[in-house]
């Protein structure tokens, strides 16, 4: 029973990371209709930038803020310089371009920061919390991870639903031609969508890197799991992304806990295949089937 509780809490805290990646994918998908396969690589890159700031200044929170700002800037720059070239072209073009970005960013990180695994500092203590003598299997840092992701998801949902910017972003995603006729500066909205996704990805990178070590391809598995979480959530909804992340986190934690850690990735990929086969629009989406 204690073991079950421990696996559940571990799963929820890992699930929060998948949720953060899923959220950033949902944001770009909803904002621009593109699936960004380089999202994990962007998060890896901003985490390296943060690590350099930690080395240079020893100040974790300065590094944290730098990573988020770098995420915003990299997201915006990639949209302006690269992704803009393929908007309005067949969807496959965007897929190929973002996969190209993934390879490019990982290569660049290898050249700039080296290919070794580097340990990464957590925001808070990673000593296990316990009630009396019962270990809970989670840490203060896990609580921070959960709170940060929930806050980000909540802000995103409220922004989309209630703010003028959110309305413009949604209008751009659903029907850019009509949005233009209503005076929406569509180009800016696309840049903003990528910038916000870059910020979310950077957050995910900061949260996950303490537990995975950091290397140019350390985010690959996390990205696949985040993508799975987004698909489980239906790609459309921020709430679905968080729920998808948590479900996936818990399932994988049970699989790892009861069957052995070597089956975790296998289960992750199996979950993706099963959802795509049985319910390709996701568990929480009411939208009809789509192309990608």
């Amino acid at each position, binding site marked *: 029973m204690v073991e079950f509780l421990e696996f559940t809490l571990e799963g929820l805290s890992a699930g929060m990371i998948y949720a953060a990646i899923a959220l950033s994918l949902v944001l770009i998908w909803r904002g621009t209709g593109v699936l960004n396969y380089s999202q994990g690589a962007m998060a890896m890159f901003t985490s390296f930038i943060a690590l350099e700031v930690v080395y240079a200044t020893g100040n974790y929170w300065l590094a944290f803020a730098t990573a988020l700002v770098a995420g915003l800037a990299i997201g915006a720059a990639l949209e302006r310089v690269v992704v803009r070239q393929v908007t309005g072209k067949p969807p496959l073009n965007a897929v190929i371009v973002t996969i190209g970005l993934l390879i490019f960013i990982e290569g660049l990180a290898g050249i700039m920061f080296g290919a070794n695994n580097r340990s990464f500092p957590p925001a808070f203590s990673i000593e296990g919390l316990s009630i009396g003598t019962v270990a809970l299997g989670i840490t203060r840092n896990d609580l921070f991870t959960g709170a940060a992701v929930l806050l980000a998801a909540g802000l995103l949902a409220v922004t989309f639903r209630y703010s003028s910017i959110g309305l413009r972003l*949604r*209008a751009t995603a*659903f029907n850019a*031609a009509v*949005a*233009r*006729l*209503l*005076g929406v*500066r569509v180009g800016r909205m696309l840049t903003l969508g990528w910038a916000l996704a870059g910020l979310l990805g950077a957050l995910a990178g900061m949260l996950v890197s303490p537990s995975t070590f950091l290397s140019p391809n350390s985010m690959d598995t996390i990205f696949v799991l985040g993508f799975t979480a987004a698909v489980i959530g239906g790609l459309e909804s921020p709430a679905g992304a968080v729920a998808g992340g948590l479900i996936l986190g818990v399932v994988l934690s049970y699989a790892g806990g009861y069957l052995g850690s070597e089956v975790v990735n296998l289960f992750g990929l199996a979950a993706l295949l099963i959802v795509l086969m049985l319910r390709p629009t996701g568990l929480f989406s009411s939208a009809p089937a789509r192309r990608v």
Partner: protein
Amino acid sequence: MSSALEVRGVFAGYGGVRVLRDVSVSALAGTITAVLGANGAGKTTLLRAIDGSVKPSDGQVRLDGTDLAGRRPEDISRAGVAHVPEGQGVITELTVAENLRLGLLLRRRADRAAALADIYERFGVLAQRRNLSASTLSGGERQMLVIARALATNPKVLLLDEPSLGLAPKIVRDILDLIKQLKDETGLTIVLVEQNARSALAIADTGVVLNLGTVVATAPAGQLAADEALRRHYLGF
């Protein structure tokens, strides 16, 4: 009376295909100008050349004297030209109210609530369905929504592309009455593109007939409706 919108000597097309050749149309302030002609005459292209989604290769599009030709669609709509495109103008993924809010964003924040209240008063159906998804509206209600959303932007000139397309005759009459009423009550300048020439001329002040991308006639609406040869030749009634 002065021209609110003046198209002068416009050439425009898609890729290498030139659709409009030396087209000039002027819409007097506070009037309805009906642009008529067969399929492929260039009516929709004319509206697109005005709203910026097609860039004219030559000529001017002047709104209150300022040339808009070559500007981007979002800047032209901000300048006061509202285009209600043919068919799929409703964003069905948004609610009725969200579609309207999107239009209101071009107004100053302080004016938005009053403008929305005006719209709901004029369009009772939309007020009733404000919180429903726009995908649940009927064809006639969608047409009302896109017209209301265009009004929400506080335009100087309203471009309407085939508002009667695909609607039942009774609904068409309602929509055309609404357009006439809008002009009479708000003094809006309206450019109305229609295949349904007879109904359009009935509410228009001026008629412009396009054929194969050039203007073949410009005259007061009553005079065009009375010109039997022209009617038979170009308008099919």
